[in-house]
């Protein structure tokens, strides 16, 4: 005899409630008619945003001397050779589906963002983070931590070898599940180009239910968070290949006379 899953007590926020809010936010965005690529910081279906977004408009600063138009630089000491291969950070092989994620980091004009730090972190194949606060009852993998970094190459390219993360539950509402994703942190040539985002895997059935992905209300922009499976990037009897290019926003550093 199987045990029935726990039923949600009255008054608990259901997926249907969240679905309605996601639909309402998308409708409001379309009615507004003003293109917005980034998520709104006030996005009610993602409950944690409620008390953590400013209510005043951002102050637009046009200052050609602003320190923010330059940014930190990183180098050989900020990464090690093993950082880009998350499957080789322990004695044994991690469990799961070995993948490579490859792409280029560009600015809005299509110029490569070279020599900049890219950091990633993710859950293991079972959907569990190596983090004390993740109490999802899925196994930790002693051979997988799920954190990596690299510097982008001269053409802006990067490549990670890792395992495909699993989806995981969270407590935004009853029966809330995050689609599989890898967290990305990127630096550009200016502090204004800083980006933290998440990469998703094509065809995940959880997309429509997830208020974090859906916080990007523009459907074309949302699709840009989904990597492409690319068979030519797969390696025979070894790994599956995904491509994900990243375009940084924000004013880029002004070109100096020496640069062309």
């Amino acid at each position, binding site marked *: 005899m199987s045990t029935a899953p726990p039923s949600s007590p009255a008054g608990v926020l259901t997926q249907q409630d969240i679905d309605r809010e996601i639909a309402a936010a998308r409708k409001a965005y379309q009615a507004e008619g003003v293109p917005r690529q980034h998520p709104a910081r006030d996005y009610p279906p993602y409950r944690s945003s409620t*008390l953590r*977004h400013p*209510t005043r408009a951002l102050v637009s600063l046009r200052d050609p001397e602003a320190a923010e138009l330059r940014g930190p630089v*990183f180098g050989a*000491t*900020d990464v090690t050779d093993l950082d880009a291969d998350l499957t080789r950070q322990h004695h044994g092989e991690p469990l799961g589906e070995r993948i490579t994620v490859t792409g280029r980091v560009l600015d809005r004009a299509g110029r490569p963002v070279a020599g900049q730090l890219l950091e990633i972190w993710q859950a293991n194949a079972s959907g569990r983070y190596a983090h004390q606060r993740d109490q999802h009852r899925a196994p930790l993998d002693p051979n997988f931590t799920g954190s990596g970094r690299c510097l982008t190459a001269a053409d802006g390219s990067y490549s990670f070898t890792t395992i495909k993360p699993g989806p995981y539950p969270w407590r935004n509402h009853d029966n809330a599940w995050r689609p599989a994703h890898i967290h990305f942190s990127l630096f550009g040539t200016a502090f204004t180009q800083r980006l933290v985002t998440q990469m998703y895997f094509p065809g995940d059935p959880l997309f429509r239910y997830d208020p974090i992905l859906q916080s990007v209300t523009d459907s074309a922009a*949302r699709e840009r968070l989904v990597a492409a499976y690319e068979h030519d990037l797969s390696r025979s009897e070894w790994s599956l290949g995904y491509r994900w290019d990243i375009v940084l926003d924000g004013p880029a550093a002004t070109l100096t006379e020496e640069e062309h």
Partner: protein
Amino acid sequence: MAQQLPTPEHPLTPAQTIGPFFGYALPHPAGGDIAPVGHPDAVTVHGTVLDGAGQPVPDAVVETWQAAPDGSLDGAPGSLPRNGVDGGPRPRNGVDFTGFGRACTDAAGHWSVRTLPPPADRPYLAVCVFARGLTHHLFTRAYLTDPGPGDLLLDDLDAARRDTLIARRQPDGTHRFDIRLQGEKETVFLDFPEQ
């Protein structure tokens, strides 16, 4: 001569929240030690990140970037150094001023960096805030000294709003800069349009 900006043709990649589980990937024990070891001019800048109910935000990341005391914005590598043995963090080299710091808030929502004072013509730390619940990071500035009239940003703000960007000098000599994500004394957050 004004530089002709290239036409943006590549649509940007949207931001997503940093989430709750960055804690084993992004923090670096020396992330906030921006000042070279033992430097006599080192200052401590610190504060609490607060939400709209005045509650501390224990899962935020505060990053700072600034000009060196001599005005340079070149920075230097080595803000988040790694060792070549197991890939774990290693201390900064103790010598170079990189201009960049990363501080994660503790259980009480508190963060701190130890740095060198920025120059008089850019007397601020550029600050970028990430947090669980924040779908897209926020920029602000922590002015360590009040530059007085003539500052492009501060001149446009009323007194109360302006006040949120000036770090408070504490009796112990540290500079306190609280970040209020929402509410009555909400911090001024910035947007940098293409110029």
